[in-house]
C-alpha cells in the first residue's frame, strides 16, 4: 500500500467554539482500512492530521454532543484524499453580522466554490473529471432557528449539477428558493454540498459544504386607526403588530404631515429596536400620537423598519385628518333703544 505522509490541514473543518453544554469531537476515518482516530484539537483553530493518508482517502467528521441529552450532531464532514478532487465552499451575504452567513428570503447571496484536483481533458471517467454540486433546502418549523446539519443534507436535493472545471465557480442567487404559504415568510436554511462521484470505495463522498440561514421579511399592522378616518377630539390609542423583525433592526412608527412619506421628514411616534440575533415578533401600545398633533390637518402614519437592507414599510400607510376647531353657527340680533316702547 502506497502511503502519503503528508501534513493535512483540516482548516476546512473548523472546530466550532466549545459552547457550554456541548463537547466537540473530530474523528478521522481512513477509508482504505477503516482505522478511526479522534484528533486532539483545541476548541477553535486548525490542526494537522497525524495520520498518513492512504489511497482511499480520509473522512473528517466534526461532531458535537449535547451533554444533557447525550444527543450527537454531525456538524460537518469532509472527504480528503491524494487522488480525490478537493473543494471549498464560501457563502457570502449582504448581512455582515451573525455567527453563520445570514440573509433574508428576498435578498441576494453568493456561493463561491473552489475546485482543485479534477482531471481535465477527454476520455477520463466522470468521477475523475467532475464533482457534483447539490443544493438542499430546509424550512424551519415554528420557533426553530437551526437545523441538524447532517439531516439537512441527507435527503433528495432541491437541485444538483456537475462542476467539471478546476478553479472558482461563483453562483449569484437573487433570492432564496425556500417556500411557504406566504413566500415572503419563508425561513430556514440553504445547504450547498460538493460531492466526489463515488466509485464505491468510500463510505461518504462529501468534499465540502456551506450553508446560509434564511430569515423571513418583517411585516406589521397599525391597529386603532384606519385609512380615511376623520378625527375631531382625542386621538385614539394605537396598537402596532410587529412580526419577524430582522435581527439588529430598528422599527419606527412615523408621523408625516400630508399624504407623502417619501422625500419629507417624519416625526418618530414610537421606536422599537431589536438587538438580538434572531427575528422578533411583538405587539406594542402607542399613546403618544394625541400629544404630537397640535394643529388641524391631514397626516399619514407609516410603520417602517430599518435593516441592513434599507428602510422598508411593514404595511400600508394610514392617512387621516384632524379637525378640532369648534365652529359656532349663530344669528346676531341687535336690540336697539328705538324699538323699546
Amino acid at each position: 500500500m502506497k502511503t502519503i505522509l503528508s501534513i493535512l490541514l483540516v482548516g476546512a473543518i473548523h472546530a466550532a467554539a466549545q459552547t457550554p453544554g456541548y463537547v466537540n469531537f473530530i474523528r478521522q476515518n481512513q477509508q482504505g482500512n477503516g482505522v478511526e482516530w479522534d484528533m486532539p484539537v483545541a476548541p477553535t483553530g486548525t490542526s494537522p492530521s497525524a495520520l498518513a493518508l492512504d489511497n482511499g482517502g480520509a473522512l473528517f467528521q466534526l461532531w458535537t454532543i449535547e451533554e444533557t441529552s447525550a444527543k450527537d450532531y454531525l456538524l460537518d464532514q469532509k472527504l480528503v484524499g491524494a487522488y480525490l478532487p478537493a473543494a471549498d465552499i464560501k457563502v457570502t451575504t449582504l448581512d455582515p453580522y451573525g455567527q453563520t452567513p445570514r440573509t433574508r428570503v428576498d435578498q441576494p447571496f453568493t456561493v463561491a466554490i473552489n475546485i482543485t484536483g479534477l482531471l481535465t481533458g477527454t476520455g477520463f471517467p466522470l468521477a475523475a473529471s467532475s464533482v457534483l454540486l447539490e443544493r438542499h433546502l430546509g424550512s424551519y418549523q415554528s420557533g426553530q432557528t437551526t437545523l441538524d446539519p447532517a439531516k439537512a443534507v441527507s435527503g433528495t436535493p432541491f437541485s444538483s449539477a456537475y462542476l467539471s472545471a478546476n478553479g472558482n465557480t461563483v453562483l449569484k442567487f437573487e433570492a432564496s428558493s425556500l417556500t411557504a404559504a406566504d413566500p415572503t415568510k419563508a425561513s430556514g436554511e440553504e445547504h450547498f454540498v460538493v460531492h466526489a462521484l463515488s466509485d464505491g470505495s468510500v463510505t461518504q463522498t462529501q468534499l465540502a459544504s456551506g450553508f446560509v440561514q434564511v430569515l423571513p421579511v418583517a411585516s406589521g399592522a397599525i391597529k386603532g386607526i384606519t385609512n380615511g378616518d376623520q378625527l375631531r377630539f382625542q386621538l385614539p390609542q394605537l396598537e402596532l403588530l410587529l412580526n419577524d423583525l430582522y435581527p439588529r433592526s430598528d422599527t419606527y412608527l412615523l408621523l408625516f404631515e400630508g399624504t407623502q412619506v417619501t422625500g419629507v421628514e417624519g416625526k418618530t411616534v414610537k421606536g422599537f429596536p431589536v438587538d438580538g440575533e434572531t427575528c422578533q415578533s411583538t405587539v406594542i401600545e402607542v399613546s403618544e400620537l394625541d400629544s404630537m398633533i397640535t394643529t388641524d390637518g391631514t397626516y399619514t402614519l407609516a410603520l417602517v423598519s430599518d435593516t441592513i437592507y434599507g428602510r422598508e414599510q411593514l404595511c400600508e400607510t394610514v392617512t387621516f385628518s384632524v379637525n378640532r376647531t369648534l365652529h359656532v353657527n349663530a344669528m346676531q340680533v341687535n336690540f336697539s333703544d328705538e324699538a323699546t316702547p
Partner: protein
Amino acid sequence: MKNTLLLCALATHALGSQPVLVRVTPETLAKLQARDPMIRLVKPAQNEAKVARPLNQSIIKQSTILHDGKNWTLVPNGAVVFLPEALKSRVNVRPVGTLLPWSEFLTKNPSWITTTEVSFDQAAGNETLPAERTEFWAKQDKIVVAVHQTGPISVRVAAASPTLTKR
C-alpha cells in the same frame, strides 16, 4: 432640556431623509427566485451521479463509551485494546452524567485507565504490537486504550496479537 430637543430634532431629520422601500410582494419574490444560476449548469441524468450522503450516523453508536460513575467519554470502537474482567461494567454503559473530552476523562481516571501509543501501521493491522507490551497489560488492573499522538485510535487485529480486542 435644550440638548434633548436638539437630539430629537437631529434624529427626526436623519430618519426623514432615508428613502422608504415598499415591502417585497410574493410576485416579485417569485421573479427573483426564477433567476436560478444553477439552471445554467449541466444536470446529472437520473441515477447517474452516485454519492453517499450522511444518513442516520451517530458518533455515540459508532464508539465505545467509558464511564466512571459521574463522567463519561467516548473513543473509537476498537480503541480499547485490553479490558480486565473487573472493569467491564465501566465500558459501553448508557451515557449519563457529565460528558468530558477524552483527555480530561483520562486525567480524572488514571487509577483504572492507561494508554498505549501505537503507530498508524499498528492501528491498521499491518504490524503487530510488541508481545512484551501486550503481556504487561494483563499485569495491570487497568483498561488500556490505544492512542496515536494522544488521540484514541481504533486498532485492527493483527495476526500475531491474540490479546487485542476484535473490532
